């Protein structure tokens, strides 16, 4: 597989606080990479190092097959669109005037700017002052600024922040459309639900460390869902099972937290041995949400 972004042991320390800790990113070319983590996990800091806007304390970044450094940054940034933290835009100027600033800096054609503006569906808003834009419009203008250069890589830091559900859905569609056009998209979020349906590869950051990186299926496979045991005497069953491991009562069933297959077999044997009838054993339905919450609270797989 070819990777558009890789990092080796990427680390950032502020004073003696390690904010990003030995991160090895692997972003496959052509994917939508969902970069997840709770607030303060170090997502923005990592993305800024990928763009060489801040210097890593140690480690290295490779983007588009080249080392990303202060020396190579100028050329590489012309091929990367990005939106980090809050969306940019001069409030006293119109959307069109803002676009023209970017166009001049990067030497872009009118057609490129028009295409970008149409992609984010802002063509009717370009004569309004950015100061009068809603947050969603500012986000879209920011993405248009990033897109106008026809980037091979688009880096979006929490683009759905502050958007209403309709805006978030629109952002999803936009990202999917871009991916179909062959742009590799790296998008961060602190809410799994926002990028769950769009991202094909996920990276999960917690406390500056990468605790998971892979496809959605791999993420599901890597974590063990709870088991529910339906039995004839749930209260007694819970008492029996609590001797083996954590067990909670749930209606007429007992829930075992993330047991392996052998543990499940042991639990069934124990119940049967105690004369309790077991008429159902099933793995709980697990949402990606649960997996994410489990990972980020427990700190790893």
């Amino acid at each position, binding site marked *: 597989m070819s990777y558009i972004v890789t990092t080796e042991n990427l680390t950032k320390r502020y004073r003696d606080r390690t904010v990003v800790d030995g991160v090895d990113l692997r972003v496959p070319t052509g994917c939508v990479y969902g970069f997840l983590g709770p607030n303060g996990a170090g997502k923005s800091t990592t993305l800024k190092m990928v763009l060489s806007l801040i210097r890593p304390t140690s480690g290295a970044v490779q983007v588009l097959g080249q080392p990303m450094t202060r020396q190579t940054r100028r050329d590489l940034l012309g091929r990367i669109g990005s939106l980090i933290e809050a969306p940019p*835009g001069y409030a006293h100027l119109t959307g069109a005037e803002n676009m023209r600033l970017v166009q001049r*800096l990067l030497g872009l054609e009118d057609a490129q700017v028009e295409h970008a503006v149409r992609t984010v569906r802002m063509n009717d808003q370009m004569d309004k002052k950015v100061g009068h834009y809603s947050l969603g419009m500012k986000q879209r203008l920011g993405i248009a600024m990033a897109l106008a250069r026809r980037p091979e890589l688009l880096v979006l830091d929490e683009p759905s922040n502050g958007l209403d559900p309709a805006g978030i859905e629109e952002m999803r569609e936009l990202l999917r459309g871009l991916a179909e056009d062959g742009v590799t998209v790296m998008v961060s979020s602190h809410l799994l639900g926002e990028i769950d349906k769009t991202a094909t590869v996920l990276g999960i950051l917690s406390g500056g460390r990468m605790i998971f990186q892979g496809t959605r299926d791999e993420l599901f496979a890597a974590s063990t869902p709870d088991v529910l045991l339906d039995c004839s005497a749930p209260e007694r069953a819970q008492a029996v099972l609590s001797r083996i491991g954590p067990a909670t009562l749930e209606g007429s069933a007992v829930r075992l937290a993330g047991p392996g297959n052998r543990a499940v077999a042991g639990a069934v044997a124990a119940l049967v041995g105690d004369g309790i009838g077991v008429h159902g054993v099933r793995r709980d339905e697990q949402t990606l949400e649960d997996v994410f919450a489990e990972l980020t609270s427990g700190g790893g797989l």
Partner: protein
Amino acid sequence: MTSATVKGFTNEFAKMRQLGVVPVGSALLLGVLGLTMIAALGDPSFAEPRTRSWLPMLGGMSMGVALMSPLMLAVLASRQVDIEHQGQGWLLSATSGLTPGQVCRAKLVALGAVVAMITIATNVIILGVGLALGVPAPPPVGHWLAAVSGALLVSLVLLALHVVLAAKVENQLVGLGIGVLGTLFAAFASGLPTWLAHLAPWGYYALTRAAEYQGESVVLLLPSWPSLLGLAVVGGVVFALVTGRLDRQEV
């Protein structure tokens, strides 16, 4: 200049729209013009066309520049820089290949060009007014140009100071407050011992006065070039150092 710097410079002009450059620039122009006329018409020689002279006008012009510029330059620089803080402009430029230091240098050049245009316009108008009032002697072109260039140099140094100050200190009241203090210093500098006027850039306006009263009569003066050169060198080096640091600073 690299092409990025030229593009940055053009963009700074584009950003000036709706930023109050015209009203602030007009205030500077009209203020200097007003003080020039007050000084001229207050001089007894202006009672009669035959005795009218350029000298009181030039003295008034120098005073007007010293009194008006410190605050107006602070306002111009602060507004031009504050939009970067407010609009995530530093990051936008950085991701489009222009470092914060380059942005600041582009701003200095663009604002400097605006102030130079205002200066030229002001002095052309003063020349026109003098001719219309029928000042009999030919204008003292050499002294006049020297004084105006000297004062423009001081203004450029002040602009540089305010641009980096506004970039480093997000609260723009700081820069404006310093502009007010600078106005006071510039107002009193002409009465201070020369060495004292050298201590802060605003004092150097006093070293560029075109004319001053000596007893009853007004005499022409030339700027003290070595001092101005010193100011330009110190200002240039400090600006280069600070913007160089901004280039390496993390955004």
